[in-house]
């Protein structure tokens, strides 16, 4: 047989087919569940591994960001391949909830979490929490120099001195709390001042790194980036201190990471079991013992002892289902931040 071009092509096509086929089979594993994951990959990976070990149910994780997935789920509608949606913050959950795409969370799961950490209508449940902080350069700022309120950062004296990660869901959740607490006009004015005053980073850890490197004096981020870095090498947070705004300030906002089961899921039982597991003993222990440093929210579940206790944070009261993501992205687009 002589060598021929078509033989070559078919051989190569076969090889490629053989290589792709197992991936496809793997991706469409009928036995397991698909999680749209906007939480930190490592945390969800730890949850999924623990869950699979205990139940034998496989978990396929797709990584993305809160609002990307929320809008994506709305567009996918009944055809969504996702079974479970996990976020870092609650506005994404509120958006999917408002479109009536969640199945009610099992009562037994809801009972594992206190009232303040879940949707009032029982459509989704809190799985972890995070506190807003002002991460500042200890070598440059004394305690007296720190802003009393997050709103102070709109002042001209803060021009060029602080940073944030506006494209991230974390920061957008803070803005949604601000919107809920202070109204549209105040939020618009604050965002406009932010565009003038702040430096912009891609990601909270990058913003913290910039504070540490002396590029800006402070950044509005969530608490656990600092704890995580301290636990590793401290390389990106040596010079950084954390300032908690407290006093029910918008900057003391505690954001709830949520989990929900999609009504369109073909694996309701497995998906509900997953939520039950991560809000239960095993899942919450991952938060206490692991290196995520997010707050545990389960009834009686302890957070990592290194953290400032949740009860000391004096967070403002915000009804999570009221947090409006569409309005926030519109306002931020208007301010030229995204």
């Amino acid at each position, binding site marked *: 047989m002589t060598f021929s*071009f078509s033989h070559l092509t078919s051989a190569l096509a076969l090889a*490629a087919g053989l290589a792709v086929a197992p991936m496809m089979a793997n991706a469409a594993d009928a036995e397991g569940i698909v999680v749209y994951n906007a939480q930190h990959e490592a945390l969800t990976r730890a949850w999924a591994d623990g869950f699979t070990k205990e139940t034998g149910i496989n978990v396929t994780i797709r990584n993305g960001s809160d609002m990307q997935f929320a809008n994506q789920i709305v567009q996918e509608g009944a055809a969504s*391949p996702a079974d479970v949606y996990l976020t870092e913050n609650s506005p994404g959950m509120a958006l999917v909830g408002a479109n009536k795409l969640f199945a009610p969370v099992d009562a037994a799961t809801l009972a594992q979490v206190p009232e303040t950490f879940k949707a009032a209508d029982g459509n989704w449940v809190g799985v972890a929490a995070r506190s807003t902080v002002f991460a500042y350069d200890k070598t440059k700022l004394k305690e007296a120099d720190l802003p009393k309120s997050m709103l102070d950062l709109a002042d001209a004296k803060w021009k060029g001195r602080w940073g944030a990660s506006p494209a991230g869901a974390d920061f957008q959740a803070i803005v949604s709390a601000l919107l809920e607490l202070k109204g549209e006009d105040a939020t618009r004015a604050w965002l406009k001042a932010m565009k003038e005053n702040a430096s912009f980073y891609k990601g909270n850890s990058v913003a913290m790194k910039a504070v540490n*490197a002396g590029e800006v004096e402070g950044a509005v981020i969530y608490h656990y980036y600092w704890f995580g870095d301290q636990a590793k090498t401290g390389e990106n947070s040596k010079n950084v201190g954390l300032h908690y705004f407290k006093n029910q300030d918008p900057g003391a906002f505690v954001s709830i990471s949520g989990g929900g089961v999609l009504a369109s899921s073909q694996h309701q039982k497995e998906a509900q079991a997953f939520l039950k597991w991560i809000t239960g003993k095993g899942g919450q222990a991952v938060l206490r013992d692991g290196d995520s440093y997010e707050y545990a929210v389960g009834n009686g579940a302890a957070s990592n002892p290194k953290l400032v206790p949740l009860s000391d944070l004096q967070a403002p009261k915000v009804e999570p289902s009221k947090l409006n993501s569409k309005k926030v992205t519109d306002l931020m687009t208007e301010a030229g931040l*995204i």
Partner: protein
Amino acid sequence: MRMPQLTAAPRGRVRHASVVALASIVALLSLVPLGFIVWITIDTGWAEVIALIFRNRVGELLVNTVLLEICTIPLCILLAVSLAWLTERTNIPGARLWSWLAAAPLAVPAFVHSYAWVSLVPGMRGLWSGVLVSVLAYYPFLYLPVAAALRRLDPAIEDAAASLGLGPWRVFFRAILPQLRLAICGGSLLIGLHLLAEYGLYVMIRFDTFSTAIVDQFQSAYNSPAANMLGGVLVFCCLLLLGIEVLVRGNERYARIGSGAARPADRRRLGWFVGPAVVLPVVTAVLALGIPFVTLARWLYLGGTDIWRIDTVGSALLQTIALAIAGGLLATIAATPMAWLSVRAPGRLQRVLEACHYYVGSLPGVVVALALVSITVRLILPLYQTFATLLLAYVLLFLPRAMVGLRASIAQAPVELERAAMALGRTPAQAVRQITMRLAAPGFAASVALVALGITNELTATLMLSPNGTETLATKFWSLTSEIDYVSAAPYAFMMVVLSLPLTLLLYVQSKRTAGQ
């Protein structure tokens, strides 16, 4: 080598018709992203379109993008032409080594370049950092064609210029440089388009361009009108760049009269200038290769054996290879009808079809991905988040790459052999398969390899379109660097470079071959 063109015989016409049909299907598919943007623009309504496009943020991005282009491209030209001249036309010691090293940075994906720089100089950001890293990552796209063109030049023209009394510098500017214009224009266009499309490089050094802003919008609001309008402006920038290149290139041509081949040019003696001249290739190699390799080696050393987790690194490697081979094959097969037509049946229709094939490859991955996400989720749900859609994106993005290798090798298969085969009783289809396609097989393989190289390092389309559970080297590397976990990201960067090396080698050898050596 250019072959006499076939004037379509009546018998050939039937054959052409089916090839034209196939090429038209691919051309129509290529129009899908553009059509989508037009449709979404109409669907959004003019008032909102104007509000979304004529706003300050778009102005800022436009300024950033224009500054990036006008700072980077001239620097790339300067660096590439100087290096090419030194390695091809002077007696610089180690010319061959420097020539290899000048092409080698192509094996390092652009976002790995900026990963290296950012972990070395954590404060790096903004325009000048963007220009620096872009020049180092992309200048080989100019170096390869310019070096090949320099090697091919007929020194007789320079001799004539010198005999008319021009000094060496004026010979260079008046006789050599004009002949490099096509190579410089082509390479600059390629770099310009890459600058528009690049995402990872600029995110890491915090420089906002349209591509980064579109991804920000995507992550904040999925396929919002705002993201699609930014995509529209970006497409406009690409088309503008293509137009500028056509204008600058012009249609002057160069010709030699008479038969025979040009003799190879003499290498200019550098004399006392050797010392300073060597500095340029050395500094370039240190910055474009030394920095990535030292940084990678450092992170790999710090990570030790813990970061080489066979399950995650291994599966990302396998998935990347599978996608690269599948995409490479598909793109090359899709490009074959057009490549064949453009060599064997040139004409007005062929030019239009070919333009469709080329334009789609100049669109940034983020625009193509956004269009395919929106179309599949709204209209063809069964294709949503499937390998089919991801592979389609790869095919569209890398069609021009596939065309390059194919065209050259089909052109080298003489049509006379095909005719002889037909005269000996083969059907036209058999003749093409048994003669032309077999002769073109090396070009086919080169095209597959070129596309595979692109897919190995592709980030945005893979992030946005891949099916659940897909993790390629690029996406794994990206998610780890986003958490500033530079240590764990190192094995993925290392594997990408290793996979890209043989392909870069191939490109280098091919550029030598087209120069007739």
